[in-house]
């Protein structure tokens, strides 16, 4: 009996090694960094608000068995293009963000459709392909934004276009829409007498995120959601059951891309500045790393993973530079360290996933062989 128990513990540890490493890491860093609990909670809430929409957008392709959608970068690009337009037109606050979302949607659908088509041509290596698509599209995005805007696309606003007359600026100020969703309805807790500090809870954004979670849960139960899960389980079986496999897969990617575009709009409206040529390429890596830190794998991810992942990953992000400064006297090491951790986590999760699937395959083959020999004996 006891043996089984220790085996269970070991299995639990192996299956959840990434979150466990992170919990230990964060626990070790908290006293070293020396931040107050209140500050940390406030920061974590800010980051949940910023990032959860983006990370949630990764769930549906995983459900459809297409792995981690590195192509979410495409959605981020669409969102950024929407924001560039509304900034150039000077559309402010929530109407501005809504309009940005409306502009981003068709672009995201188009990009998602392209990505889905490509991934259907590269079944079995969706991840590396979606990764290369994000690189390729980054080139196209630069062509459009850096050379097309102002020369082909009629945008001439000073706050967006470079002085040379075409091309978007490196950084675009989003003051017009900054925190407009967050400040629409938020409450402050534990503030001091000057109304400073404390914990800010932006209710409206949290409600939006909750709605998305509900949509995802509901979506799993719809016909198309069921189809996606079937395709994710086994493409051939699904095809025989009459499911249009290719169409379902494209749909999964389109939905993910559109959500990523909205997520990017929420993220950037919270940040207040747009780094035109950098943010979209980083956002994919960080969102994926956060999801994996939450204990998700290439084939299985839930909403629980999303929030646990964001909390742990961003706790590490907040803590390491300060911990590095206090420990070694160099904040730079902390920064390098967190980049290393982001990449390392993705590597570790991918490797562990592969090893686990292979072992499971071998085990099922063994049981199959065993049952066959038993049958033969009987």
């Amino acid at each position, binding site marked *: 009996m006891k043996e089984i128990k220790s085996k269970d513990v070991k299995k639990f540890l192996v299956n959840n090694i990434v979150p466990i490493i992170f919990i230990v890491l964060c626990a070790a860093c908290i006293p070293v960094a020396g931040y107050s609990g209140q500050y940390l909670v406030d920061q974590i809430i800010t980051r949940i608000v910023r990032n959860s929409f983006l990370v949630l957008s990764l769930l549906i392709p995983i459900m459809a068995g297409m792995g981690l959608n590195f192509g979410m970068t495409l959605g981020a690009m669409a969102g950024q293009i929407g924001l560039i337009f509304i900034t150039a037109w000077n559309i402010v606050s929530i109407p501005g963000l809504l309009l940005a979302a409306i502009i981003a949607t068709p672009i995201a659908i188009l990009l998602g459709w392209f990505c889905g088509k490509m991934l259907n041509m590269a079944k079995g290596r969706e991840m590396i392909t979606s990764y290369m698509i994000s690189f390729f599209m980054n080139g196209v995005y*630069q062509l459009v934004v850096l050379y097309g805007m102002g020369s082909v696309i009629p945008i001439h606003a000073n706050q967006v276009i470079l002085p040379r007359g075409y091309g978007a600026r490196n950084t675009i100020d989003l003051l017009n829409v900054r925190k407009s969703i967050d400040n629409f309805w938020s409450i402050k807790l534990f503030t001091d007498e000057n109304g400073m500090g404390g914990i800010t809870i932006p209710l409206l954004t949290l409600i939006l995120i909750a709605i998305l979670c509900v949509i995802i849960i509901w979506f799993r139960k719809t016909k198309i959601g069921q189809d996606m899960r079937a395709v994710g389980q086994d493409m051939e079986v699904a095809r025989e059951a009459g499911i249009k496999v290719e169409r379902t897969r494209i749909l999964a990617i389109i939905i993910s891309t559109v959500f990523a575009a909205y997520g990017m709009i929420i993220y950037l409206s919270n940040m207040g500045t747009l780094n035109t040529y950098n943010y979209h390429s980083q956002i994919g890596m960080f969102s994926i790393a956060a999801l994996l830190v939450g204990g998700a794998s290439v084939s299985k991810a839930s909403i629980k993973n999303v929030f646990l992942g964001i909390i742990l990953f961003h706790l590490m992000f907040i803590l390491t530079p300060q911990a590095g400064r206090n420990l070694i006297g160099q904040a730079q090491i902390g920064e390098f360290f967190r980049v290393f951790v982001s990449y390392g986590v993705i590597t570790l999760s991918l490797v562990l996933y592969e090893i686990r699937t292979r072992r499971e395959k071998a085990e099922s083959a063994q049981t199959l062989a065993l049952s066959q020999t038993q049958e033969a004996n009987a």
Partner: protein
Amino acid sequence: MKSAKEIFDLRFFVRLACIVVIIALAIFLYNFGKQRTLYVDNWTTEINGTSYKAEDWAMVEVDDLGAQEYGQRVRRGIPLRGKTHTISITYDDRSFNEIELPVVEFSLPYDATLISIPGLVAGLPVEECLSELVVQAPPAEEAPAAADDGMSGDAGFGDMSMGF
């Protein structure tokens, strides 16, 4: 090949309606959310060849954003959302009588519009008191963006770890 009847079924019209509604919403949002700046201006100005002297003192309220005092040669920019707005002016005449002008409604024709108080006080129609303010381009604050895909290797770690 699908027949026309198959293509133009109920589903098609529902989708068409959705798209139309979304486009209408987008246009509405564009007009409703567009921010224009109104520069309320109390300088001596020339309109249609006549010169109007700046008022010594005036109280001006745009929409219901609170009244503000304007001395001579004062110009303030007020960011406004939407197109149609109102302005109410109270001013002193030469014998220090406070005179309140009737509330004037106007719409903003430019992204940066100048509205002249002396002109309004002189009783000119509001359209003639509006003019476009040409804002000088802000000085070139940054070098042209480098095409940085991260492939060239100089998209530093500094970028990657910035305030995420």
